[in-house]
Every structure is written in C-alpha cells, then in structure tokens.
C-alpha cells in the first residue's frame, strides 16, 4: 500500500481524514499513484493535474523522501520507501500569498 498525504483543501474535497493508503499496481510511479488516487476519488480529477493532458497544475508540488519530484517525468519510479509504505507520497499546495 502506498501512503499518500493530500493538502488540506483536497482532503476536505475528498472527505478524507489524515493520510490515505491506496493499492497501486507496479510499477509505482508519480503517474500510477495519481491514477489510482483519482480512480478511488473521482472528485480529485482536474484538481492535481489537468483533465486530458494530465499536466501537473502550476501550484501543486510532489515530494517523497525529502525530494521534490514535481519536475520529474511522470513515469519516474518512486523510491522503495514509498513503494513499501515506509514513507508517504506528498501532494503539496505550493506556498504563495502575502
């Protein structure tokens, strides 16, 4: 099971408390985790990546094991610690404001 942590507003939208554990078929990549997440929570479609293009929304970032994976290709395999559920995959709303 892959652990996923969503930002506050997306947890509310999906009516989730705390972090998630979702089944992701291998290979476990940014894309496959998001595919599994959106299949389980269709309301999240379009909120993390665009409909159709699946391009990451501008103010969304992806982190795992202290690394920023936002600019990595979507098919990049996630670290073993994430695949094995020892570390979460983080979806983060980028800092902005004043």
């Amino acid at each position, binding site marked *: 099971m892959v652990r996923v942590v969503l930002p506050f*507003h997306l947890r509310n939208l999906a009516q989730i408390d705390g972090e998630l554990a979702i089944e992701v078929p291998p290979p476990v990549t940014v894309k496959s985790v998001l595919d599994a997440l959106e299949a389980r929570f*269709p*309301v*999240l479609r*379009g909120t993390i990546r*665009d*409909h*159709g293009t699946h391009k990451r*929304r501008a103010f969304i970032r992806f982190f795992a094991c202290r690394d920023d994976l936002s600019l990595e290709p979507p098919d990049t395999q996630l670290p073993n610690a994430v695949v094995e559920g020892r570390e979460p995959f983080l979806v983060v709303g*980028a800092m902005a404001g004043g």
Partner: protein
Amino acid sequence: MSSVRVLVGTKKGAFILTADGTRRNWNVSGPHFAGWELYHLKGSSVDPNRIYASQSSGWFGQVIQRSDDGGKTWNPPGTKPEELMSPDGMPKGASNMFAYEGEVGTHKFYDGSQHPWEFKRVWHIEPSLTDPDTAYAGVEDAAIFKTTDGGRTWHELPGLRGAKGALWQPGAGGMCLHTILLDPQNEKRIYVAISAAGAFRTDDGGQTWKPINKGLKSPYELPDPDAEVGHCVHRIALHPSKPGTLFMQKHWDVLRSDNGGDLWNEVSGNLPSDFGFPIDVHAHNPETIYVVPITSDSLHYPPDGKLRVYRSKSGGNEWEPLTKGLPQKDCYVNVYRDAMAVDTLEDCGIYFGTTGGQVYCSPDGGDTWDAIVRDLPAVLSVEVQTLK
C-alpha cells in the same frame, strides 16, 4: 409565510442567509467550502432545493458543487460513493471538466497577439427555467457550456466563439463570460455578456450567436466607433415580463435596448458616475432599475466615499440616490457585477454585497437598507431565492 434564501459567494467560501418575509431577522450558515473562491451560486426556479455552485482555487482549479436540499448538503455531481457502483465502471469525475469543443483557436491577448483559449474558472451558472438538470455555465476564457445531467458533464456551445472570437480580449479581470440571461418567453433565445467582448444573442438555442453591441460607445478602449465586438460590458439584466428590453451597465455608461439588443441607447442621465458593475430590475416593475455608481475605472469605490444605490423608475435617464441605512462617509468598497439580486416578494427586496464583506438588504424596493452581515470575506456574488 414566504421566506427568502440569499446565496452569497465570497473569496473564502459560500454563505447562506435566510429570513422570513419580513427580512429583519437573519440566520447565517457557512462558510461552505471554506477557503475556496465561490464565484457564483444559483438555485433552480423549477426546484428551489437544487442549487449549483462554482467553487474554484488558484491551486486546485474548478469544482462544481450541487445541493439537492437547499444548501444543507453538497456534492460534486457524479462523484458520490454510490455512483461509483455504476455497472459501466468508474465514473469519469467530469463535473469539473470544461473542455472547449473542436479546434480551440485563439483570441486577442493583452499585448495584441493571438493567444490560445485556456479554461480558468466558471464565473456564472444559470439554471434552466424548465428543467432542474439543465444549466448553463459562463467561463473564463470566455465560452458557454451546458449540462443536461445535473452537472455531471458539461459541453460547450461552440457557436458563441464563432462570433468573432478571435477579436475578443481580456479585461482587467480576465476574459470572462459573466452574464447569462434566459428569455422566459422564448426558450431558444439566450443573451450573454463577456468582458471584454460585448453582448451576444442566440435565437436558436445556442447553435449560432451574433454580437448585439450596436450603439455602444467605448472611445477610450475601442477607437473604432463601429466595433462589433471588444466592448467591456459589465452586466446586463432583463425583466421576465418584458424580455425584449435589456439594461446594461458597461465599463462606462448605462444603456437600454428595446429590441433584444439590436440597438442600445445611453440612459446614464444624472448619475454621479456611469461607471459601475451590477445592474438589476425591480421584480414587479420592468421600468424600475438599480445601479451602484463607482467613481471610475481607476478608482473602484463609490464617489465621495458614499455608498449609494441609484434607482430609476423611468427605465433610465432620471435617477434618485438611495442612501437610508447605507454608509454616507468613509466608504471605499466596490460592488461586483454578480453581487446584486432582487426577491419577488410583494414589496421587492433588493440585495447587494460588497468587497468589504457586507451584504445589504432593502425590504422595500430600495427605500431603506440594513446590513444582514458586515464582516464576510469580499463578496463575489449574491443571488436570492423567494420561497413560498
């Protein structure tokens, strides 16, 4: 006894204000969707418990919410857990998918270059007058979409962008389709308004559209006096009993048309400023109209720091200030285009919200005003439902 339900969209959530027909004591619920921008909420006139809401965020994009119990509970259409059990497999979660039809094409950008259409958000949702599952959405970058399945899926009516769309350009607030008026006497006729493209009309249910901007003068923004499109129309309004008469608050100028928008005449008359955003019509008198004058396009607050609604009982030209209960000094708020509404009770309540977070109500057609709430986030939209 009749009652009213006021749907307020703000920069940080939605609020629902309810009162009985006296409109003196109010209950406030919210924030719904706290922290999100709620550009617009509107209920179906066929089924008042059906309310659509546009929820959006610069981070997370667009979400459409729907309530079937008058705003007590909400769900993005098509994403309820029980709908996941469809024998056809998983739903697409497409209630927030606004994909332009066919070749996306380009429009005029701020620098004069051509720029591809890009969906940003839904500014306005207009439920059908006959079917609660049908509604229209006005979006940025400007286009009109339609749902016939209660908001689960939306499809563009692309003929609108065929009306010289390449010449449309964004105003300061973006290139938004912010007004949709359905003709209650002719289901094939729809009016829309776009900043900064102008007003448009379809007479065939949305397949083909034509610009209806003759008579508009925008010399500072559009040097061509005969420009068919490119006008910054802020809002248009009509009375259901007289849908061929339209009223318009343009960037500058208040205008009226008595032939479905074919020709417009200025009726700014004695207004202290003819710049402003909202315009609305009294529920029972189609020649009584309301505007909120704003100082200028550079100074988005009321002239002299006095918040005054202006009423014309003659369909324009002659205006009277309505001030009783409104702040008459040190007031520097704005009133956005979708933030005024009227109820249909006998004495016609008038409502508007401000960027300072106040929502005002006049239970007597504008003669006296009181604030329902004073400290909401900046108000983006106000709609009212009159409940029998």
